[in-house]
């Protein structure tokens, strides 16, 4: 219970720090909010400008501005997007579903796939298949997400024409008529890209862990009793390897978010990632801040989940609150 309070308080302070940091960054940006608001090439008289500055309170002390902004945030008001002219919170709600779906699929598939590969490599240690898997993970750990996306797009959409070039639904179809089949069809390639990108770490980590287990005395004893490799892996290996792999994979959520920004850009998949790029490029401050905060909260929740999950599965770790282990 004490730890829970500690976690929550720490989380609260981090969120506070985050909001101050993002606010400061945007506050000192050379991008003029008024110019960004009215758009390039349009002019307004000095009088109108002052009125707007007055209305937005741009001449107030930064702390005052921050407090005003933060209070609005706490009330769920993220402000108005300057690109879309709609409340940021509505926009985020609309887009979050698509991104969450994409990330969940990618996270699950890459986790399962990576874990399986890792176990397989460990069991056949030193043989050809182990080498192949290791080699694959080694290369794949540095493949740029967007390049892989481009390659898949080229192969599957341009040459083979199996999949559509982008978007989360067929163009020209009403949102209400979009079936789950349509969605899955459009989700395929971005999800595949992110799934492949996410496997390397889990694979290598699981392989290492499994090899440790397989070299242990109790496995030697099990072998002596005549247990088959399959039995040993099932009884001793999986239990020991699953937790670290899961932990590692939870900490991957942050990176996955970055990956989904790129994948969404490549496949013009309408999610939060594509929107944050647009907001950044077109200087839509409220939208940018809203998405930055949301994504950080999301990652933070991922980390906390990992922490609690670890304690729940392995009560031995309960004694100390360790953030360092998440890394």
């Amino acid at each position, binding site marked *: 219970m004490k730890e829970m309070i500690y976690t929550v308080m720490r989380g609260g302070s981090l969120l506070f720090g985050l909001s101050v940091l993002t606010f400061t960054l945007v506050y000192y*940006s050379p991008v003029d909010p008024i110019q960004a608001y009215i758009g390039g090439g349009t002019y307004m008289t000095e009088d109108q400008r002052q009125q707007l500055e007055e209305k937005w309170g741009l001449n107030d002390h930064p702390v005052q501005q921050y407090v005003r902004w933060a209070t609005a945030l706490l009330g769920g008001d993220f402000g108005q997007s300057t690109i879309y002219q709609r409340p940021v919170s509505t926009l985020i709600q609309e887009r979050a579903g698509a991104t969450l779906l994409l990330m969940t699929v990618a996270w699950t598939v890459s986790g399962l796939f990576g874990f399986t590969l890792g176990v397989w490599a460990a069991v056949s240690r030193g043989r050809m298949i182990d080498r192949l898997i290791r080699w694959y993970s080694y290369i794949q750990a540095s493949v740029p997400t967007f390049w892989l996306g481009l390659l898949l797009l080229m192969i599957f959409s341009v040459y083979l024409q199996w999949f559509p070039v982008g978007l989360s639904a067929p163009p020209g179809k009403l949102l209400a008529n979009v079936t789950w089949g349509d969605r899955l069809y459009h989700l395929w390639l971005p999800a595949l890209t992110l799934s492949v990108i996410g496997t390397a770490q889990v694979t290598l980590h699981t392989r290492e862990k499994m090899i440790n287990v397989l070299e242990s005395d109790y496995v030697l004893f099990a072998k002596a009793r005549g247990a088959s490799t399959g039995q040993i892996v099932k009884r001793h290996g999986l239990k020991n390897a699953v937790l670290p792999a899961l932990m590692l994979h939870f900490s991957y959520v*942050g990176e996955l978010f*970055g990956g989904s920004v*790129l994948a969404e850009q490549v496949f013009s998949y309408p999610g939060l990632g594509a929107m944050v790029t647009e907001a*950044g*490029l077109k200087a839509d401050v409220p939208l940018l801040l809203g*998405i930055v905060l949301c994504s950080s909260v999301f990652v933070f929740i991922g980390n906390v989940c990992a922490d609690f999950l670890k304690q729940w599965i392995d009560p031995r770790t309960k004694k100390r609150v360790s953030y360092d282990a998440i890394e």
Partner: protein
Amino acid sequence: MRLNERQKMMVALFTSSLLLLLLISCGWLLSDDGLQTNGALKNEPPSLAHWFGTDWLGRDMFTRVLKGLQLSLGVGLLGAIIGVTLAFVLGMLAGTFGGWVDAVIGWCIDLFIGMPHLIFIILIAFSVGGGMKGIVLGVGLTHWPSLARLIRAEVQALRQAEYMLVAEQLGRTKWQMSREHLFPHLFPHLIIGFVLLFPHAILHEAALTFLGFGLSVQTPAIGIILSEALHHISTGHWWLTLIPGGVLLLVVKSFDEVGERLKQLLRPQTSQQ
């Protein structure tokens, strides 16, 4: 000829370094002629005259890619310097002084780790108004926490070492001890951290230019080349996509290789992992 592990390692280190050197010097020596548009040579597949083919404006892809790498390396260098310096200073401070200094720095580390890198880099790029500055700062400011954490742990462990305790008993100041005992010990970390930060920096630079932050479209940058390839993807000109990304991957892996091998050389005790 059979090589032992150490010899293999040296070969790998040597080859990767040589490759990187070659790419850098090539980019330096190449003239800018290939960047001119040439209507007669549009969309040529790779050939002897144009190793990487030409794009839809007749620009030589070989020149563009190598010049783009030049930029990536520059950004990587500056970003890595910023990141390593930050990590080193903060890690040392946290480890040496402990107490509230440690608490504050640890909090900062948690804060920066909690944010998705790419999103944070976008924010930084935006807040300094885009351009090279944004990319360099973004890369530098997001990549220090894990190295800082490592250095902090290392310093904490070292503080318990006997020679440190003796030095303290002999009345050495913290500054003297840091300089005489800690720094030489941490120096390999610094070098390794520096080299291993490069691949991250380069990948993030490419990602950021791909998304369209900062640089003008004329600048040769791998990210921009690939983002153009995305717009022309339906033409099926595979060399526009495959080769630039492949070269990028090669460079990233080479840096990775150099870093890992250096780690084995400089810190043999951890090389078994």
